[in-house]
């Protein structure tokens, strides 16, 4: 099974024995609740799946792992930059054809009463800018394309 994580793509195939799963010497009991056993100690865990993302809580830590569905398009970034949440475009600071570097601010949008910068997620040349100043954008809307 493959997951997108903050450290990149990770593959894991836990061993299964009935309702008990294991890997790296850790055991997980999957019943109506989740109990993880490490070195003889048991820890309560919580998990829920939202879309393709598994949310996990264990020992005060919350993590998210995006399941990469086999056969689905790679989760790798393909240069499309989308709005992280609904909001309004306040400034557009780049032009089509412009060369940009990773981290460079390309747009400013307002959401949740705060301003947020939209920055380039790769080096490249801007192919498209899909919104103008003042536009309302939906969550997930593609804002620009870099190639």
């Amino acid at each position, binding site marked *: *099974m493959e*997951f*997108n*994580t*903050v450290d990149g793509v*990770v593959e*894991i195939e*836990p061993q*299964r024995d009935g309702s008990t*799963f294991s*890997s*790296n010497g*850790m055991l*997980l009991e*999957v019943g109506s609740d*989740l109990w*993880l056993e*490490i070195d003889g100690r048991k820890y309560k*865990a*919580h*998990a*829920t*799946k*939202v*879309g*393709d*993302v*598994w*949310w*996990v*809580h*264990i*020992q*005060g*830590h*919350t993590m*998210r*792992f995006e*399941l990469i569905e086999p056969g689905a398009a790679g*989760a790798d*970034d393909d240069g499309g*930059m*989308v709005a*992280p*949440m*609904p909001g309004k475009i306040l400034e557009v600071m780049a032009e089509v054809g412009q060369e940009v570097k*990773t*981290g460079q*601010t390309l747009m400013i949008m*307002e*959401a*949740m*009463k*705060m*301003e*947020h*910068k939209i*920055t380039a*997620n790769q080096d490249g040349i801007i192919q498209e800018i899909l919104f103008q100043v003042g536009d309302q954008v939906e*969550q997930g809307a593609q804002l620009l394309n870099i190639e």
Partner: protein
Amino acid sequence: MLKRVLVANRGEIACRILRACREAEIEGVAIFAANDSGTLFTELADISIQLDGEGLAETYLNQQQIIEIAQQNGCDSIHPGFGFLSERADFAQAVIDAGLIWIGPSPTAITQMGDKMTARITMRAAGVPVIPGEEVEGGLEQVLALAPSVGYPLLLKATSGGGGKGMRAVHDAADLESEAKAAMREALNAFGDDRIYIERLLVGSRHIEIQILADQHGRTIHLGERECSVQRRHQKVFEESPSIALDSELREQMGEAACEAARAVSFEGAGTVEFLLTPKGEFFFLEMNTRIQVEHPVTEMVTGVDLVREQLRIAAGEPMSCGPLSMRGHAIEVRLYAEDPANNFLPAIGKLQIFKPPTGPGVRFDTGVRQGDEVTPNYDPMLAKLIVWAPSREEALLRMGRALDEFVVLGCVTNIRFLRELCDHKDVVDGWTTTDMIDRLWPDGWAPDQNSIITDAGLLIASSCEAAGFGKQLSTKSSEHISPFTTLNRRFP
């Protein structure tokens, strides 16, 4: 006594006020925008009225509509909470003109304190020390012209501001113009007023604020301090009382200065006078908030005074019920934000699929949300406040750590882990809390201190749950929530 209060607010603070009303045997009327339908505060009210319109201006900021609802529903008073219309003198005046009781200070006091420049001038006149800086009357040009005389680093602040909106730190003259533009734009959007002013940025200072209560019977008292130095994006995240930096002598000095500030504007009700306390021990007036404060619970837990209940008493013309100041033990509040601390505290949204707050000794939980609620981008991302009390600061930090470890929120990113690490951080444990501490400690942004065992455990849990089809009924459609991993850099610059 008041009979029926309209609460002109939403979320956590509306819940707080509506509960206080119920405990005072006063009826509480909630108003809510369509997108707040069915949320917790509408449930806690005796009567809930839906506001017409969309967007803040047509709903929670719609003075006329709110006053009409109050009148149509037999309310005798309006409590504004914090934010929204709470520091709008014109609204306070309109409420009074409509024959209703305004649960707050007079419009004059709000005006004098709400305009940060006027407040600076008033305080200077009353002998309360203010931060070196410049009041600006004009626009961008004047800001650019006056900045050099204040010197860098400096702070741009919205004249009508609050809550960190329209506030920008400028460390270098090169950034002044763009930051000033951004500050003015944010100020305009947030407060309908784009004026900003300039203050010296006092590096390494603590944010100390004094809680004030004043009734109509001539009594103005302070209830000790709160230290709210730990801030991100100029918004407080971790607040405590008492402050490690104050001894009883300094507390009395600052308390007296705060009472002086309140008396200077004939203040009435609950308010907070904010100071910066420099490493040298000088304190400067920052501003006065003429309303209940987000972090009021830490004062309540240390002093035993129910501040919202006292607001209701004072507004009804009753004397406040509290006796002489008696502070006991130590209280800490942390703010639960829907935001990603590993991504420059960018606000987050999502459905609270699992939401299990901690309970037990010394724990208070003031929330605006419940499990199953949807966090939307429409409002402030503060969802709840977790407050602990313990006999000592050391015990309070350990208790907060315990409570945060028990707190489970899945389905929306929050700052829980960031807050948890703060409780253990040497600078916090030692009390070296200053307003610049988050930038100082994590100049390149914060990331969770997570060992590989935890990560491996997380992956085992995710993969096993996937393989076992765990909790399948809970999953929602993929389109509802976009993956947070593909759209943003890990470190938002």
